Protein backbone atom coordinates (compact mmCIF):
# COMPACT_ATOMS: atom_id res chain seq x y z
CA UNK A 1 0.00 0.00 0.00
CA UNK A 2 1.32 3.41 -0.99
CA UNK A 3 1.92 5.84 1.86
CA UNK A 4 -0.60 8.57 2.51
CA UNK A 5 1.63 11.29 1.12
CA UNK A 6 1.85 9.52 -2.23
CA UNK A 7 -1.93 9.04 -2.29
CA UNK A 8 -2.42 12.74 -1.50
CA UNK A 9 -0.04 13.73 -4.27
CA UNK A 10 -1.73 11.41 -6.75
CA UNK A 11 -5.20 12.64 -5.89
CA UNK A 12 -4.12 16.25 -6.16
CA UNK A 13 -2.29 15.69 -9.42
CA UNK A 14 -5.22 13.93 -11.10
CA UNK A 15 -7.83 16.47 -10.04
CA UNK A 16 -5.71 19.57 -10.65
CA UNK A 17 -4.75 18.23 -14.09
CA UNK A 18 -8.43 17.78 -14.94
CA UNK A 19 -9.13 21.32 -13.75
CA UNK A 20 -6.29 22.69 -15.84
CA UNK A 21 -6.91 20.92 -19.13
CA UNK A 22 -10.36 19.34 -18.91
CA UNK A 23 -9.36 15.68 -19.12
CA UNK A 24 -7.70 13.19 -16.82
CA UNK A 25 -4.07 12.10 -16.96
CA UNK A 26 -2.90 8.65 -17.97
CA UNK A 27 -1.06 6.63 -15.33
CA UNK A 28 2.23 7.26 -17.10
CA UNK A 29 1.70 10.96 -16.46
CA UNK A 30 0.89 10.20 -12.84
CA UNK A 31 4.15 8.27 -12.63
CA UNK A 32 6.11 11.13 -14.11
CA UNK A 33 4.52 13.58 -11.68
CA UNK A 34 5.44 11.32 -8.76
CA UNK A 35 8.94 10.61 -10.14
CA UNK A 36 8.33 6.85 -10.09
CA UNK A 37 8.40 4.21 -12.87
CA UNK A 38 5.22 3.83 -14.96
CA UNK A 39 4.16 0.56 -13.32
CA UNK A 40 4.47 2.15 -9.90
CA UNK A 41 2.33 5.05 -11.07
CA UNK A 42 -0.29 2.59 -12.27
CA UNK A 43 -0.22 0.78 -8.94
CA UNK A 44 -0.63 3.95 -6.91
CA UNK A 45 -3.46 5.15 -9.13
CA UNK A 46 -5.28 1.82 -8.73
CA UNK A 47 -4.81 1.96 -4.97
CA UNK A 48 -6.18 5.48 -4.88
CA UNK A 49 -9.21 4.55 -6.96
CA UNK A 50 -9.79 1.65 -4.60
CA UNK A 51 -10.04 3.76 -1.46
CA UNK A 52 -13.78 4.31 -1.85
CA UNK A 53 -13.59 7.86 -3.15
CA UNK A 54 -16.23 8.45 -5.84
CA UNK A 55 -13.92 7.78 -8.78
CA UNK A 56 -13.57 4.86 -11.17
CA UNK A 57 -11.81 3.48 -14.22
CA UNK A 58 -13.47 2.64 -17.49
CA UNK A 59 -14.22 -1.09 -17.00
CA UNK A 60 -11.34 -3.37 -17.90
CA UNK A 61 -8.88 -0.53 -18.44
CA UNK A 62 -6.47 1.75 -16.59
CA UNK A 63 -8.21 4.84 -17.99
CA UNK A 64 -9.83 7.19 -15.52
CA UNK A 65 -13.51 7.44 -16.42
CA UNK A 66 -14.61 9.60 -13.54
CA UNK A 67 -12.95 11.54 -10.76
CA UNK A 68 -15.41 13.47 -8.63
CA UNK A 69 -16.65 16.03 -9.10
CA UNK A 70 -15.55 15.84 -12.75
CA UNK A 71 -16.10 13.19 -15.39
CA UNK A 72 -13.58 12.18 -17.99
CA UNK A 73 -16.34 10.96 -20.29
CA UNK A 74 -18.86 13.53 -21.42
CA UNK A 75 -22.05 13.61 -19.37
CA UNK A 76 -25.10 15.79 -19.84
CA UNK A 77 -23.71 18.14 -17.16
CA UNK A 78 -21.59 20.57 -19.15
CA UNK A 79 -19.40 22.92 -17.17
CA UNK A 80 -18.31 26.33 -18.43
CA UNK A 81 -15.87 28.64 -16.67
CA UNK A 82 -15.01 32.06 -18.07
CA UNK A 83 -16.44 31.15 -21.45
CA UNK A 84 -14.59 27.86 -21.75
CA UNK A 85 -16.74 24.71 -21.84
CA UNK A 86 -14.23 21.93 -21.38
CA UNK A 87 -15.41 20.04 -18.31
CA UNK A 88 -18.22 17.67 -17.44
CA UNK A 89 -19.60 17.01 -13.98
CA UNK A 90 -19.80 13.47 -12.71
CA UNK A 91 -23.52 13.85 -11.97
CA UNK A 92 -26.13 16.47 -11.27
CA UNK A 93 -25.34 16.66 -7.57
CA UNK A 94 -21.56 16.81 -8.00
CA UNK A 95 -22.18 19.60 -10.53
CA UNK A 96 -22.91 21.81 -7.52
CA UNK A 97 -19.46 20.96 -6.08
CA UNK A 98 -17.48 21.87 -9.20
CA UNK A 99 -17.41 25.49 -8.01
CA UNK A 100 -14.96 24.49 -5.26
CA UNK A 101 -12.38 23.70 -7.97
CA UNK A 102 -12.62 27.25 -9.34
CA UNK A 103 -12.63 29.54 -6.32
CA UNK A 104 -13.76 33.08 -6.94
CA UNK A 105 -15.05 32.25 -10.40
CA UNK A 106 -18.56 31.66 -11.69
CA UNK A 107 -19.13 28.08 -12.80
CA UNK A 108 -21.99 27.53 -15.21
CA UNK A 109 -23.73 24.17 -15.27
CA UNK A 110 -25.92 23.42 -18.26
CA UNK A 111 -27.86 20.21 -18.70
CA UNK A 112 -30.98 18.95 -20.37
CA UNK A 113 -33.82 17.88 -18.09
CA UNK A 114 -34.10 14.11 -18.46
CA UNK A 115 -37.89 14.37 -18.53
CA UNK A 116 -38.43 16.98 -21.22
CA UNK A 117 -35.00 17.72 -22.71
CA UNK A 118 -35.32 21.42 -21.99
CA UNK A 119 -32.29 23.25 -20.62
CA UNK A 120 -31.40 23.63 -16.96
CA UNK A 121 -28.83 26.31 -16.23
CA UNK A 122 -27.07 27.20 -13.01
CA UNK A 123 -24.44 29.82 -12.25
CA UNK A 124 -22.60 28.88 -9.06
CA UNK A 125 -19.79 30.81 -7.39
CA UNK A 126 -18.10 29.69 -4.18
CA UNK A 127 -21.13 27.64 -3.15
CA UNK A 128 -23.68 30.35 -3.89
CA UNK A 129 -26.21 29.80 -6.66
CA UNK A 130 -26.17 33.15 -8.42
CA UNK A 131 -28.70 32.19 -11.05
CA UNK A 132 -30.94 29.18 -11.63
CA UNK A 133 -33.09 28.67 -14.70
CA UNK A 134 -35.82 27.71 -14.36
CA UNK A 135 -36.73 28.35 -10.74
CA UNK A 136 -37.75 25.28 -8.79
CA UNK A 137 -35.02 22.89 -9.96
CA UNK A 138 -35.00 19.53 -8.15
CA UNK A 139 -32.40 16.82 -7.73
CA UNK A 140 -33.31 13.16 -7.72
CA UNK A 141 -31.70 9.82 -7.04
CA UNK A 142 -33.49 6.51 -6.83
CA UNK A 143 -30.83 4.73 -4.76
CA UNK A 144 -30.69 4.92 -0.94
CA UNK A 145 -27.52 6.62 0.36
CA UNK A 146 -26.18 3.44 1.95
CA UNK A 147 -26.17 1.71 -1.45
CA UNK A 148 -24.37 4.35 -3.52
CA UNK A 149 -21.01 2.62 -3.33
CA UNK A 150 -22.41 -0.67 -4.62
CA UNK A 151 -22.68 0.92 -8.06
CA UNK A 152 -21.07 4.33 -8.13
CA UNK A 153 -21.37 4.94 -11.89
CA UNK A 154 -25.10 4.24 -11.78
CA UNK A 155 -25.58 6.31 -8.64
Amino acid sequence: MADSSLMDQTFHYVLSTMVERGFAPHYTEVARALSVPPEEGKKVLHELMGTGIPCWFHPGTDFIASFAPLNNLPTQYRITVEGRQKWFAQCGFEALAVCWLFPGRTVTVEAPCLDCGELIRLDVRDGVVEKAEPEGIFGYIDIPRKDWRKNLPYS
Partner: protein
Amino acid sequence: MNLFRSEEHARNWAGFGDPQGLLPLDWVRRLWGVAWYRERLNGHFVSGMMDFVPERNAVLKAVTQDRPFWRPA
Protein backbone atom coordinates in the same frame (compact mmCIF):
# COMPACT_ATOMS: atom_id res chain seq x y z
CA MET B 1 -28.09 11.72 -9.37
CA ASN B 2 -29.78 14.02 -11.76
CA LEU B 3 -31.25 17.48 -11.97
CA PHE B 4 -34.73 18.23 -13.25
CA ARG B 5 -36.56 21.43 -14.12
CA SER B 6 -39.01 20.83 -11.28
CA GLU B 7 -40.30 18.19 -8.88
CA GLU B 8 -43.02 17.41 -11.40
CA HIS B 9 -40.44 16.76 -14.11
CA ALA B 10 -38.53 14.44 -11.77
CA ARG B 11 -41.70 12.53 -10.97
CA ASN B 12 -42.52 12.27 -14.69
CA TRP B 13 -39.11 10.83 -15.52
CA ALA B 14 -39.09 7.22 -16.71
CA GLY B 15 -36.47 6.38 -14.07
CA PHE B 16 -38.45 7.76 -11.14
CA GLY B 17 -38.92 5.39 -8.24
CA ASP B 18 -38.64 6.16 -4.55
CA PRO B 19 -39.91 9.71 -3.90
CA GLN B 20 -37.59 9.99 -0.89
CA GLY B 21 -34.78 10.63 -3.35
CA LEU B 22 -36.22 14.04 -4.28
CA LEU B 23 -34.18 17.05 -3.15
CA PRO B 24 -34.83 20.75 -3.81
CA LEU B 25 -31.83 22.45 -5.42
CA ASP B 26 -30.92 24.32 -2.25
CA TRP B 27 -30.68 21.07 -0.32
CA VAL B 28 -28.30 19.70 -2.95
CA ARG B 29 -26.26 22.89 -2.69
CA ARG B 30 -26.04 22.57 1.09
CA LEU B 31 -25.10 18.91 1.01
CA TRP B 32 -22.42 19.40 -1.63
CA GLY B 33 -21.11 22.48 0.14
CA VAL B 34 -19.48 20.77 3.12
CA ALA B 35 -15.73 20.41 3.60
CA TRP B 36 -15.72 16.90 2.10
CA TYR B 37 -16.48 18.53 -1.26
CA ARG B 38 -14.83 21.93 -0.69
CA GLU B 39 -11.43 20.63 0.31
CA ARG B 40 -10.62 18.29 -2.56
CA LEU B 41 -7.78 20.45 -3.82
CA ASN B 42 -6.19 21.14 -0.43
CA GLY B 43 -3.22 18.90 -1.23
CA HIS B 44 -3.84 16.41 1.58
CA PHE B 45 -7.39 15.39 0.90
CA VAL B 46 -6.98 11.62 1.01
CA SER B 47 -5.08 11.51 4.29
CA GLY B 48 -7.50 13.97 5.89
CA MET B 49 -10.82 13.06 4.33
CA MET B 50 -12.10 11.04 7.26
CA ASP B 51 -11.93 14.20 9.37
CA PHE B 52 -14.66 15.62 7.15
CA VAL B 53 -17.08 12.72 7.58
CA PRO B 54 -18.71 13.87 10.85
CA GLU B 55 -19.65 17.27 9.36
CA ARG B 56 -20.82 15.67 6.12
CA ASN B 57 -23.04 13.24 7.98
CA ALA B 58 -24.37 15.90 10.35
CA VAL B 59 -25.42 18.15 7.46
CA LEU B 60 -26.89 15.16 5.64
CA LYS B 61 -28.91 14.26 8.71
CA ALA B 62 -30.13 17.82 9.22
CA VAL B 63 -30.98 18.55 5.60
CA THR B 64 -32.77 15.27 4.98
CA GLN B 65 -34.39 15.26 8.42
CA ASP B 66 -32.70 11.93 9.08
CA ARG B 67 -34.92 10.05 6.66
CA PRO B 68 -33.80 6.41 6.43
CA PHE B 69 -33.31 6.73 2.66
CA TRP B 70 -30.48 9.19 3.27
CA ARG B 71 -28.69 7.48 6.13
CA PRO B 72 -25.09 6.54 5.24
CA ALA B 73 -25.42 3.05 6.71
